[in-house]
């Protein structure tokens, strides 16, 4: 928890402890990375306005070496601030003043991992997604994704025939029950594309469907999914198989 306000930090600590979560605190942005390396947290709560180094830079530093989920705490919901935060690597954000339940829900959503034990490999063209192994390879080369980007890709790749609206992705990947900021989806699709696409301007794996949302692969790629699944290296199950259901959602 990186925040310079001691009262807020202490209160957050009380709330999180009440939820059975352990929190460590850091009040200085310039010391955040050091603390992060030392403590190896499961999730980072990051205030945008910090002494030393601002939250956006801290997010960039952490993201440069780890995919650990980052939730930004911001007092400003203005476009620039939020988008800057998301583009610098934050997975989600909460606007002050937030309700404790809201924050806990966001933290839980980031902590939740698709811990499927069933072997499952998804394929979009030359992109292979090993779901239990949390790894992605493009033409055999590993691609490093954050857990959130991985979840986003898995959600799309499991149902390549389906167009996902931004709202559906917010619910499925971010765990939002009600309408939320669709910019979350836009920014993270951009970040995902930057990592997996050869030409992010001309995406082939994550396609935009104008006015609706996103879907995996192009039509011809989707065609090839079925035969490929029949002869994989590892045992492959169809993405829509009910043995790999969405885990229950945290929060209320």
């Amino acid at each position, binding site marked *: 928890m990186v925040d310079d306000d001691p009262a*807020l930090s202490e*209160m957050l600590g009380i709330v999180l402890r009440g939820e059975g979560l352990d929190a460590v605190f850091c009040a200085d942005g310039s010391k955040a990375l050091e603390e992060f390396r030392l403590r190896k947290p499961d999730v980072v709560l990051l205030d945008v306005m910090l002494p030393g180094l601002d939250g956006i830079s801290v997010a960039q530093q952490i993201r440069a070496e780890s995919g650990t989920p980052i939730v930004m705490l911001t*007092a400003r919901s*203005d476009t620039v601030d939020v988008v800057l935060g998301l583009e610098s690597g934050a997975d989600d954000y909460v606007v*002050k*003043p937030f309700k404790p339940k809201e924050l806990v829900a966001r933290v839980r959503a980031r902590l939740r991992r698709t811990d499927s034990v069933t072997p499952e490999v998804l394929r979009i063209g030359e992109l292979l997604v090993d779901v239990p192994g949390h790894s992605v390879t493009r033409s055999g080369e590993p691609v490093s994704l954050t857990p959130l980007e991985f979840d986003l890709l898995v959600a799309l790749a499991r149902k390549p025939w389906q167009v996902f609206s931004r709202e559906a992705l917010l619910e499925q990947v971010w765990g939002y029950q009600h309408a939320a900021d669709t910019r979350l989806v836009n920014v993270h699709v951009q970040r995902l594309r930057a990592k997996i696409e050869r030409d992010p301007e001309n995406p082939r794996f994550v396609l935009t469907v104008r*006015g609706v949302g996103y879907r995996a692969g192009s039509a011809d790629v989707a065609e090839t999914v079925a035969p490929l699944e029949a002869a994989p290296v590892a045992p492959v199950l169809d993405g829509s198989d009910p043995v790999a259901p969405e885990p229950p959602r945290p929060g209320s």
Partner: protein
Amino acid sequence: MALGTIVVVALSQFVLQDVASGLAEQRRQFALVESQAQVARAQEAFDQASAQDAEAEQLLVDDLLPRLEGSGTTRLREVVLLRASGNQRAATLRETYSESLLPATITPELREAVAADPDRQQSQLLQVRSGSDADDGSPAIAVGSRVVLPLSGEYDLFLVYRLDTEQQNLLVVERAFLLGQLVLVLLVGGIAWLVTRLVVEPVREAAGTAQRLSAGALDERMLERGEDDLALLSRSFNAMADSLQRQIVQLEELSQLQQRFVSDVSHELRTPLTTIRMAADLLHDKRHEFDPDTARSVELLQGQIDRFEALLADLLEVSRFDAGAAELDVEAVDVVAVVRQAVDVCAPLADSRDVGLHTDAPQQPVMGQVDRRRVARVVRNLVSNAVEHAEGSDVTVTVAADAQSVAVGVRDHGVGLDTAELERVFDRFWRADPARARTSGGTGLGLAISLEDARLHGGRIDVWGRPGQGAHFVLTVPRRNGADPGEGPIRVRPDSLGDDHVADGRGGHDHGQGHDQPHAVGHPSSIPVPPPDVLASAPPSPTTEVVR
């Protein structure tokens, strides 16, 4: 240029006339002097003659007259001899004309003049016609004098001097003048062009610069050259532009400072508020462990923190509009879906008030280029506002679209609004009836924000209301961002009301009975004055928006 031409032509005509009359006068003087000599010569010849009879006298005259015409081959003048009107002598002479003259050459006026004053020379400027052709004439001066013949008595001798030479001179002068005129006109044109270049061009440049300045290019300046009046104009103009730019930049800085301040204050306020919020929530969750008074206090605390938060959020939104920092995040969305979602959010509130909430929308999606968040917020604000004031009656939300725009109507049948209230319904922090119990946690900014949201879309909110009959708010936004929304598919006046209520006289197309304050609707020019029958509508006790 035209004026210059006229002046040149008039002036040269005047000079030409002067020259012509001068020439004629000169010739006349000459003619008079000459005539006197000739007539004296003739009279002398007559006096010395000793003709015995009329025939001899006729011979004398016939011999004399050709000599009067001139010496040698040059004929200087022509001669006419006519019998004076009062001559009673028996002896008569032939009336004689030089052969090139017609009898009509000597006018009766001249003859009368000679008759009236025979002792002096009489002269007249006249046209000599040598043929029968009436147009064919040349100017001449005729000088008439009386001569007395020994036998035949008084005869009038007229000497006619042709002005052909003068005429030709005049022609030459005229031609010279014509050429002069042409040169002058060209000169005037040239000067006019030069003046245009020197004076009008800088003025045009000033106009262009002023236009660019007003279009926002604050760095535009005029070129300052020379020391003349135009340079003074340029300098004054640039000084004005400098001063304007300074003030605008100053205002901009001030506005940015203000905006920055509000933003900073928000951050500073929000952090402690978050702590308070969490502490209150913690207490609220445990309120059943407290004694009743403490538990109730915690509930009140919780409620007021909600209100505080809502107020802060709305204030920030308003300050964003005021700073012009509000930005439209436009995408093509199904407006019906957005409206249904927003109405669903209000369902718990409607349930708690026992208000039926109905949505009347097309089955198929209605796509529009709108800001989803803002449209949803407007609908939420309008619906919860309607629910607050429905007093248990149903609230109907209508969605309709035409080619140009999409509209959302929210109709309740509650307390309604009167004309005065209609005018203030979008005012910030305004409440229809301060005496009425404040049941909602509204901030008093919801409708003001809704109106700003509508205007940001280039749309508007029309409102109709009448006491006891409820109110109707209609949001109309263009389907294409930036386009004109037009009349809109939903009329703000409910159709169920008879024609007698249609009072705004717009060809039966009754429209927004809004309010005439400038910020009331998107198109102030289209706001009709509220007709007297429109009396009431819902007071603004809006919802707050918490969704980001």
